[in-house]
Every structure is written in structure tokens, then in C-alpha cells.
């Protein structure tokens, strides 16, 4: 029983990682109706930026703030410069552009920062809360930060005019233009926010998994699964999906065996999707004939 609790708690901790990256994926989806496969690599690159700042002596929260802002600006620039030319191309062409970004950022990070793993500091105390041996303070802290970001996103989309404009631009670009929304800039803003969220996710993830260029690869897969499981158009669902995937992965690994952990976890996820094709909390789309 104790084992099970331990695995579940640890699963929640890893799930927190997936949830934060899933949030960035959902953010991009809400703004552009596309899933950005390069999200992980952008987050990793931003985290390296933070690392370089910290190495140069900038205090943690200062580096954090600079990184988040830089990531935001970077995201906007990427949308305007790199994505804009293929805005009207077939979806798969855009997917190729995403793959290109993924490969470029991964390769650049390896070239500039080398491939040896680097420890990344955590802003949270090293001692576990109440001295427990199940979850570290960092893991609890990252989960808290993910939930805070989620709340901020929720408020932003639901209650601010800008959030409404963004949602409109993604759902119906033509009509949005007709009411005066600058659709192009809404997309760029979406990318900027997603990049910023990704940077935060990266900085929360790196202390646990260690910073290296391939750090996000495995995480992106599970984050993607979690986001879709919860429903790609529901930020809350995506976060929940991330946590579920984390726990599922751990429990399957512990009780079915680690040799088929990946396979079984993915089978379960796909199975859920077959039953509920839009994810647990996603909106079911009704198409007009």
C-alpha cells in the first residue's frame, strides 16, 4: 500500500512536469489550432538561456524573469518571421516547419552548450516539506506554479477582452477580421504566451531531469498524450491529463513491469481516446454538412 502511495505521489510529481508542458501545447492550440511539436525544444532552449544567465551571476528570480520575457519575445518573432510565410499552406507543411524548428533548436543547443548534463537550480528549499520522503519541495513547488499559471490563463481567456479576441481569432479568423481583430498579431501573441509558458515549464523541469539538449524529447510525448487525453481545447483538462499520464505511467511501470511501461501507458491513453475521441474534457465538435 505504501508502495502504491509512493508511486502515485511520484507520479503526480512527474505528472506535474507533463502538465506544465501540456499547458504550453494547449496555449498554442487555443491560439492557432495547431500543435507545435517544437514546443519542447523551445522550452529547453529558453532554459539554457536561464542557465547561462545564472552562470553569469544573475540571481535566480532575475534570470527567471528575463528568460520568460525573452521567451515571449522570441515566440512572437518566430511566429511573425518563420510561421507567417506558411500561414496559408496545407497543415502538413506547417507541421514540417515545426519539425524544422525542433531540429534546429535541438542542434543549436547541442552546439552552443554541449551535450553534458548540467544541474539547474531550483528556487524552492532543498529540504522536503515536513521531512517526507515522497515528494521534494521542488516538485510540490512546480505543481503549485503550474496551477497558478493555469489559473492566470483561465482568467485571461475568460475575462479579458484580449483573451476573447485571441480565442475568436483562432476559431474564426475571417469573422474576427471583420470585427476589427488583428488576427496576425493575435497569433503572434499566442505564440509568445506559449513560449513563455514553455520557458517556465522548462525551468521547473530541469532541476528534476537535468538540463541537456534532449531533455524534452520524452517529456513532450507524454505531455502531448496528456493534453489530448484531457482535451486539447481545455487548459484545465490538459493539466489534469498530464497528471493522469504521470500517475498512469508510474503505476503501470510498478505493477505491470517497466519493460512494457511505455507501450501499456500509450495503449491505455489511446483506448480512452477511442471511447471519448475528443478527450475527457474536450469539446465535441459538431460539423455542419
Amino acid at each position, binding site marked *: 500500500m505504501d508502495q502504491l502511495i509512493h508511486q502515485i505521489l511520484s507520479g503526480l510529481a512527474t505528472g506535474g512536469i507533463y502538465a506544465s508542458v501540456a499547458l504550453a501545447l494547449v496555449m498554442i492550440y487555443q491560439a492557432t489550432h495547431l500543435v507545435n511539436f517544437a514546443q519542447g525544444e523551445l522550452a529547453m532552449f529558453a532554459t539554457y538561456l536561464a542557465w547561462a544567465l545564472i552562470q553569469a551571476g544573475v540571481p535566480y528570480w532575475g534570470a527567471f524573469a528575463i528568460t520568460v520575457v525573452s521567451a515571449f519575445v522570441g515566440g512572437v518573432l518566430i511566429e511573425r518571421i518563420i510561421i507567417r510565410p506558411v500561414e496559408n499552406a496545407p497543415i502538413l507543411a506547417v*507541421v514540417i516547419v515545426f519539425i524544422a524548428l525542433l531540429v534546429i533548436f535541438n542542434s543549436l543547443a547541442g552546439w552552443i552548450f554541449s551535450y553534458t548534463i548540467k544541474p539547474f537550480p531550483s528556487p524552492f528549499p532543498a529540504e522536503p516539506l515536513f521531512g517526507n520522503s515522497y515528494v521534494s519541495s521542488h516538485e510540490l513547488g512546480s505543481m503549485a506554479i503550474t496551477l497558478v499559471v493555469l489559473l492566470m490563463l483561465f482568467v485571461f481567456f475568460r475575462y479579458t477582452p484580449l483573451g476573447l479576441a485571441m480565442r475568436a481569432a483562432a476559431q474564426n479568423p475571417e469573422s474576427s477580421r471583420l470585427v476589427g481583430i488583428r488576427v496576425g498579431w493575435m497569433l503572434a501573441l499566442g505564440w509568445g504566451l506559449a513560449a513563455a509558458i514553455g520557458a517556465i515549464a522548462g525551468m521547473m523541469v530541469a532541476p528534476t531531469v537535468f538540463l541537456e539538449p534532449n531533455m524534452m524529447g520524452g517529456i513532450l510525448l507524454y505531455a502531448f498524450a496528456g493534453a489530448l487525453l484531457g482535451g486539447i481545447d481545455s487548459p484545465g483538462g490538459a493539466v489534469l491529463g498530464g497528471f493522469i499520464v504521470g500517475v498512469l505511467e508510474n503505476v503501470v511501470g510498478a505493477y505491470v513491469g517497466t519493460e512494457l511501461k511505455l507501450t501499456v501507458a500509450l495503449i491505455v491513453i489511446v483506448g480512452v481516446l477511442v471511447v471519448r475521441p475528443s478527450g475527457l474534457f474536450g469539446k465535441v465538435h459538431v460539423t455542419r454538412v
Partner: protein
Amino acid sequence: MSTAATSLAMPAAPSVVDAARRRRQLIGVGILIVAACVLPFLVGNYRVFQLTLVLAYSIALLGLNMLTGYNGQISLGHGAFYAIGAYTAAILMDKAGMPYWMTIPIAGAVCMVAGFLFGLPALRLEGLYLALATFALGVAMPQILKHKSLEHWTGGVQGIVIVKPDAPEGLGLSQDQWLYFFTLAWVVVMFFVGWNLLRGRIGRAMVAIRDQPVAAQAMGVNTSLVKSLTFGVSALYTGVAGALGSIAIQFVAPDSFNIFLSITLVVGVVIGGLASISGAIYGAFFIQFIPNVADQISKAAPWAIYGIFLLAFMYAMPTGVAGFVRILRARLRR
């Protein structure tokens, strides 16, 4: 799904102009085949080996194109079918002592069944969700291949070494040249069959499902059957390619077939040109040779250069090389 590709995919109604065009096409294809037959005698064995891989990839890309380009179902996991085909051939040759040429159709058949079975539950999934399901398949395949229970057959992490077949006596061909021609023969067969399939009723049904699924169903197209069949046929093609490729490489191992292979196949299809048969060949050349070119340009960050190539191709030719060729031809005709 993609709207730009629609106009490129629908075959025109028969007419007199068409017959002339058909003859021109046939002559063009004939010239291509002759050129392909002459090539291995002009370059060294190493290049012949690379070209054999291009041929194998082109079959895989045609298969994936059927599914994604013509039928609109995204698959990010076709590397799994390539792996199944490769392993089927390897296991049959290694454990059952079967001659290499017999393994190819069997690999195709096995993959057809696998693809069909996978396509059935995937019927419920659309777009992104299907992408995830296929992505899951692609990611999980190496782990499945490594599993203890299959180890006796698959050789586990050590993989299987395949003996290179010799050219038949008296032909005076090197092993590499023989394998090239063997693969070329399969390319001609598979492409011809594919061309007929896509031109005919099933091909039109596939495209109809891609563009207007509800209307297609209303017109009497059995969407479930066509979609699952397309998955099966697409997997068949990719499996045949996997078998041919593995014989050329003479080695299969689980980690040769990771998710990056699936992504590479998607890149090949899009760069080559969605919903186009010639696109498969352009795409195959791209995925085989561009990484080498990138490596030559920059030793420090070759994949960054590869990414830049991808961007350049997508900016200049968003409908792929085949789409670009079509546009060029249309312009020249004016």
C-alpha cells in the same frame, strides 16, 4: 484537412487531350525506367547501395502518401510498419531459412493485416487524435521489439544480421547491383498497382473521404471500410519497403526503427508532395541525401542545416516538389 492539395489530386475526366497526355506520361515513365536501369553501371557500389535505399523509401512514401495525402489520415507512426516489414523479412530469412525474394510479399501481407487492424479502432479518431495514436505506435514499437517474449524471434536488442543475397549466376552483376534491380522491379510493380488503385473507384473514394467525409457517406461510400483498407494498403507498401530496405542494410535492430524514422517518412511525403505519386520519388531522394549534404555543410550543427533546408523547401514549395513541378508545367504551358 488540406485544401490546397485537393485541386492537385482529382484525376481529370477522360478525353482526347487526355489520351495524348497519357501517352506522354507513359513515354516519360519509360525514359525514367531506362535511366534507372543504366544508372547502377555508371556509379560505384556505394552509390548503388544508396540508390537502393532511395528506391525502398519511395515505396514507403507512396504508401504513406496514400494514407495521408489521398485519404487525409495523418500517421506519425509509419516507422512501425516499416519495422514490422523489416523484421518479418529478417526473421523469415534467419530463422526459417527462406530465400530473400519470398519474404517481400509475406512482409507486405503481414503489414497489411497489422495496418488494417490498427486502422479499425483508429476510425474513431480524427486529425490530432489520430496523430497521437499513430505517434504512440511509432514510439512504442522499439520497446515491443525488445521485449523478452519476442526475443527468441527478434534477437532482442542485439538485432538480426541478414546475409546478403548473391546475384544469380551468369549475370555478371555485383551483389549491390543485383539488389538494386530487385528493388527497382518491386518499385515498378508497386507504383503501377498504386497508380491504378488511385485512379480508380477506390482512389476517388479515398479522396472524397478526405475532402467531404459526410457527403461521401451520403453518396454511399463505405467510409469505415475504405479508411481501414487504406490503412492496410498503406501499411503493406511501407512493410514491403521495410523488407527491401533491411535486406540492403543487412541488419535489423529495434532502435533502428524509432520515432525519428516515422517523422522522417512524414517529412519525405510532404517535401515530395502530398497526393502525388511522383512525390514519393522526390521525397525519397530528399530524406536519403539531404542529411548527408547538411553534414558536409556543417560538422558542428548538421541537423540545424537540415532544419533550414526543411524551412526553405516549405517556403518555396508548400505543396512539395511535385506540386511545384505541376505549377511550373502549368506556367510553361501557358
